[in-house]
């Protein structure tokens, strides 16, 4: 058999078409499972079936690939050993992380999986390129291989290092504040030009694997420079964007090795990441370019602080709050990341149960960027066994605020600031929860500290607002205890 010329799969040069065709059809079956799996995720009751269907597709894809390479017979014993040891080691780490991760740390884990996915995709292109460059009687590598290899390496490497930085920021190992690297933008331009030059050199017919590795290293540095200046509030957008990148990198790897499974799966992930990126950016009224160029507080809007927001605030105690809640008909809870940071999901659920037992209608208003990644708050509350039917999106809940007797804001800040409706400040134009339209507002907050936008929240100075200064966990427990004493529920 001739050395595999164009692609590793080598469908067209392999002596047995029938076998390869069968494998291709099986991979199509796997891809179908992925699509149907994602389709089933359109409703919570069927979502877990969807994920398992997708996992089944993955198993089929892996099994058929093992059959293919065993049938091809080009793999060495060492090759098998690398796969077996590497696969088992990776799976073990993945399994451990997946089992042990706390729901609050989910964004870090997703970032980490983005990183390794992007990294693996880049490695596939590098390995294939090195192999092709090593085949001396191959005059030049076809442009369709070299172009997609470069794209794969660039996107994959940027995702690898960028996601690790994002995970580090989320984990608190790297400052979650925007870290401005002096001259970072210029360095990125220089690196970008270097990557272009390297690409040109490869396309000119030089089978230079060292150039590709240089491109990979430059891209790794670019990923770091890209994510370092992005602040914590923008993390939902960054994670989504890196997710889209990973998908694209995997699809490019599919082009390189001519694997339909990778192309289809990569495109699906690319689509998913893009949709979520757009939703997150819209929810903060920020353009993606603006976010990548620099975080909140680094712009010049910080000096235009809303007037009069530093007026008197009314401080309330647990007993006042308990009376209001216990005799309300409708309560809307507005959870923010502060709730999760204080691990108070279970406490809020306990309070809600108590109120519901008294016939109070309780629902939760979830802003799209509540938490550190898209939908994060929903998972945190689902973990505390809050029924998902009570979790309302911004569009669903906003018309209900005027009917609410009490809006209970816990650890949410910027997304409730009425200043967003006015032009000229850091949150202008950002879609907000209409908390200020509720008949009465309680805010549980540790201090008058600012949110990410760095401006005062005018909601706090509203005469209808009572500020309950406490840690979310401690405050909720105090309120729950006060409600119990007040109404004598056992």
């Amino acid at each position, binding site marked *: 058999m001739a050395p595999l010329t164009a692609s*590793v799969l080598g469908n067209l040069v392999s002596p047995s078409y029938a076998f390869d065709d069968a494998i291709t059809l099986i991979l199509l079956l796997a891809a179908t499972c992925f*699509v149907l799996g*994602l*389709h089933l995720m359109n409703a919570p009751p069927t*979502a877990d079936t*969807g*994920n398992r269907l997708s996992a089944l597709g*993955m198993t089929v894809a892996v099994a058929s*690939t093992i059959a293919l*390479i065993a049938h091809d017979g*080009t*793999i*060495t014993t*060492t*090759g098998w050993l*690398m*796969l077996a*040891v*590497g696969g088992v080691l*990776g*799976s073990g*780490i*993945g*399994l451990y992380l*997946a089992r042990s991760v706390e729901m609050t740390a989910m964004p870090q*884990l997703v970032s980490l*999986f983005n990183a*390794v996915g992007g*990294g*693996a995709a880049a*490695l*596939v292109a590098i*390995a294939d390129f*090195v*192999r092709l460059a090593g085949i001396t009687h191959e005059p030049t590598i076809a442009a*369709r291989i070299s172009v997609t290899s470069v794209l794969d390496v660039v996107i994959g490497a940027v995702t690898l290092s960028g996601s690790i930085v994002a995970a580090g920021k989320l984990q608190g190992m790297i400052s979650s504040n925007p870290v401005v690297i002096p001259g970072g933008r210029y360095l990125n331009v220089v690196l970008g030009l270097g990557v272009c030059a390297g690409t040109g050199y490869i396309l000119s017919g030089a089978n230079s694997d060292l150039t590709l590795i240089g491109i990979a290293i430059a891209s790794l540095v670019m990923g770091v420079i890209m994510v370092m200046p992005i602040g914590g509030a923008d993390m939902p957008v960054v*994670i989504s964007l890196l997710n889209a990148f*990973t*998908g694209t990198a*995997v699809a490019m790897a599919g*082009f390189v090795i001519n*694997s339909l*499974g*990778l*192309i289809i799966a990569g*495109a*699906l*992930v690319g*689509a*998913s*990441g893009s*949709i*979520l990126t757009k*939703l997150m950016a819209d929810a903060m009224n920020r353009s993606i370019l603006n976010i990548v160029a620099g975080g909140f507080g680094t712009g010049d809007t910080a000096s235009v602080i809303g007037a009069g927001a530093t007026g008197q605030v009314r401080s309330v105690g647990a007993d006042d709050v308990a009376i209001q809640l216990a005799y309300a008909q409708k309560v809307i809870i507005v959870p923010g990341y502060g709730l999760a940071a204080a691990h108070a999901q279970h406490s809020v659920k306990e309070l809600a149960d108590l109120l519901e037992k008294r016939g109070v209608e309780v629902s939760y208003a979830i802003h799209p960027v509540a*938490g550190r*990644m898209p*939908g994060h708050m*929903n998972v945190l509350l*689902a973990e505390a066994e809050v*029924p998902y039917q009570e979790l309302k999106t911004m569009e669903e809940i906003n018309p209900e605020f005027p009917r609410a007797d009490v809006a209970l804001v816990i650890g949410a800040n910027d997304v409730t600031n009425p200043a967003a409706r006015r032009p000229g400040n850091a949150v202008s134009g950002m879609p907000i929860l209409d908390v200020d339209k509720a008949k009465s507002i309680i805010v549980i907050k540790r201090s008058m500290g600012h949110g990410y936008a760095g401006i005062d929240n005018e909601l706090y100075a509203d005469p209808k607002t009572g500020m309950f200064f406490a840690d979310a966990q401690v405050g909720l427990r105090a309120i729950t205890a006060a409600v119990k004493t007040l109404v004598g529920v056992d």
Partner: protein
Amino acid sequence: MDTSLITDVTIFVLSLLVGFEVISKVPQTLHTPLMSAANSIHGVVIVGAFLIASTAHDAVGYVLAFIAAVFAGMNVVGGYTVTDRMLQMFQHRPAPAPKDASTDGSHS
């Protein structure tokens, strides 16, 4: 022009469109599991890791294949496991029946 490239690009674009269509119907409640599920799906890059291992014949090739296998294995197994863990939280649990049972005797 290379016909296989054309085919690949066609499939890529159509898959993107299918992805947009299917994923835009996923409710906000499930966006975290969705991203995690998408994460697991890009773990299909493990197929790529297998294929590069199948052609590796020197130290560089083996090392690259090994790292790719570790990365992809972590991605696939971890991704599906954690997604499933999250989605189980969205399943309806049976109503807390034991509570009723325990009060049966005491109220008589």
